């Protein structure tokens, strides 16, 4: 058994090494990656590095509401990015908001990946009527804007973390399904799959051990882009008031929260969460672009 394990470890080590070297060729992508690492760090350690716990309503003071950036509030510390209408320290709220946005984005991305991957792979392997039905449903869904679908679903399911994740998964799995279906249909007709059928090996082994690994690379790219897009979708839903309750605001809810003060000179309440959101999404997309670039098979030629 040790041989098989050795082989797998070795495989991943050499491949990751090559991958990293090629990835690091783009300085922009490297910077974006550093930003993502920093954002993830902030999201994970938000309770320890934030000046205030914005969820603890008892610690909020209405006298501190709408303080401009740099003001010292009643808590005795500087509100670097100011406060919002409820007296929340914006820096803390953004840290906590990042935590929620990233969590939702990653969970929605991961579940949509698993769901989309499974049905896309099965459709490609089965072929015929099963494939036709599944892929027509996927096409139908891709012809509708994801935001519309997510809006209807959140309206139906109600507020809450799981409801939101469900809505995002349903809105996004189709992208994964179509991507892996395309890759897997091309691999399906190759002789090594036929050789596995002729051995014979059972369908689940052919699917998981041969078809899946060979169809995976394009999915990695889609996954990064879809995580960014899930974060944006979630922000949009929260901005429209359909996301999580305002007592636990995500970035979108924070932007909505300050929207009414935007024209009265108190720009920071909306703008700083917006900047955090943009930095997050742009960084993820830049990294995703570079991954796509590295994985492009035509690149080496």
């Amino acid at each position, binding site marked *: *058994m040790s*041989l098989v394990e050795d*082989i797998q470890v070795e495989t991943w080590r050499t491949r990751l090494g090559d991958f990293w070297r090629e990835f690091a060729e783009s300085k922009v992508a490297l910077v974006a990656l550093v930003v993502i690492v920093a954002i993830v760090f902030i999201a994970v350690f938000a309770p320890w590095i934030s000046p205030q716990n914005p969820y603890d309503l008892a610690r909020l003071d209405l006298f501190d509401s709408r303080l401009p950036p740099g003001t010292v509030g009643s808590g005795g510390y500087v509100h670097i990015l100011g406060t919002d209408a409820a007296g929340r320290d914006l820096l803390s709220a953004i840290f906590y908001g990042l935590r929620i946005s990233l969590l939702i984005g990653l969970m929605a991305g991961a579940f949509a990946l698993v769901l989309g991957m499974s049905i896309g792979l099965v459709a490609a392997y089965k072929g015929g009527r099963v494939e036709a039905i599944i892929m027509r449903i996927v096409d139908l869904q891709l012809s509708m804007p994801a935001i519309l679908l997510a809006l209807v679903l959140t309206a139906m399911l109600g507020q809450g973390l799981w409801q939101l994740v469900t809505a995002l998964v349903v809105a996004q799995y189709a992208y994964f399904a179509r991507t892996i279906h395309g890759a897997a249909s091309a691999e399906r007709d190759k*002789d*090594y799959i*036929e*050789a596995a059928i*002729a*051995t*014979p090996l059972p369908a689940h082994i052919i699917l998981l051990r041969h078809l899946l690994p060979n169809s995976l690379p394009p999915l990695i790219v889609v996954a990064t882009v879809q995580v960014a897009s899930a974060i944006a979708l979630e922000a949009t839903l929260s901005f429209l008031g359909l996301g999580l309750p305002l007592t636990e605001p995500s970035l979108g809810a924070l932007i909505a929260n300050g929207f009414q003060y935007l024209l009265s000179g108190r720009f920071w309440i909306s703008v700083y969460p917006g900047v955090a959101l943009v930095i997050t999404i742009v960084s993820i997309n830049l990294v995703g672009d570079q991954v796509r670039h590295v994985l492009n098979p035509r690149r080496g030629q």
Partner: protein
Amino acid sequence: MTKAMLSIDNAAKRFVTPASMGDRIAHALGGPDRTQTVHAVTDVTLTVAKGEVVGLVGESGCGKSTLGRMISGIYAPSSGAIALEGTPVAKMAGKRIQKLTTRVQMVHQDPFSSLDPRMRVANTVSEGPVHHQLVSAAGADDNVADMLVRVGLDASTRRRFPHQFSGGQRQRIAIARALAMQPDLLVLDEPVASLDVSIQAQVLNLFLDLRQQLGLTAVFISHDLGVVRHVSDRVAIMYLGRVVELADTVPLFDRPAHPYTRALLDSVPKLGAGRGAFSAVAGEIPSPLNPPPGCAFHPRCPFAGPRCSVERPILKAGDNTPGTVACHLYDGGT
């Protein structure tokens, strides 16, 4: 002749090209049926004795690869039967084909697509035997090493990926994968067609060595008469899905009976024959969607008479033919 290992009895394979959605709706509403049927293999009867190598020869599109896939259980026959010592090699389970036996193994034509690019050689070779418990998981590594040595590769190469090998080496790996399943019958589908000529000879010699060591029974598919002559005991010539001549190798090459076999032998470029001295088989191979009536070869046959376009000749022995032949020339004239 000893007992038959493989018996193919009136086997046929038809592929129905699916109609478009629009055509299907039109058909349901009373329009014409627009599905087309490709007769890839029609009524082939053939036996392969234990220890025998039978060559399948024909132009591209004559159904020899389809027949090979039917023998190895990738396609189930549309009608007729293919059995290995009495056991069918495949059956239809609903719409899916179920291969029934591990005893028939196949070597594909193109070793660049027949090996999983993301799997190391050791796993490629041991996957089947371990799954079917022909070797234990603990003994798999030694087994892989044995197999690689047997096909002339270094055992230490088993941790490499397919892309680290040349075409000839990859074909050896494909043969090792097939042999690791301890098959009773090997189907080789154009195993040297995509290799350089110098490498072809090496792989053919490997096959002959293995045959001698292991007493292999094999069906060897090729469009290259020289290759088939070198490795086969008997040769079946196929044309448009049917066997038109079946005979022992030596007499067949000495005095081919069927006009198509003669044309094939004449069309092989020979050294020393001078420039422009070889004749091609005239005309194109007809479409298997719509095979000509009577003898399928009559539109291209120099000896065709009125009977050929009406009555289909059957495969049988004639006067002074090397084996059995499906041609009216040996059955009362055209």
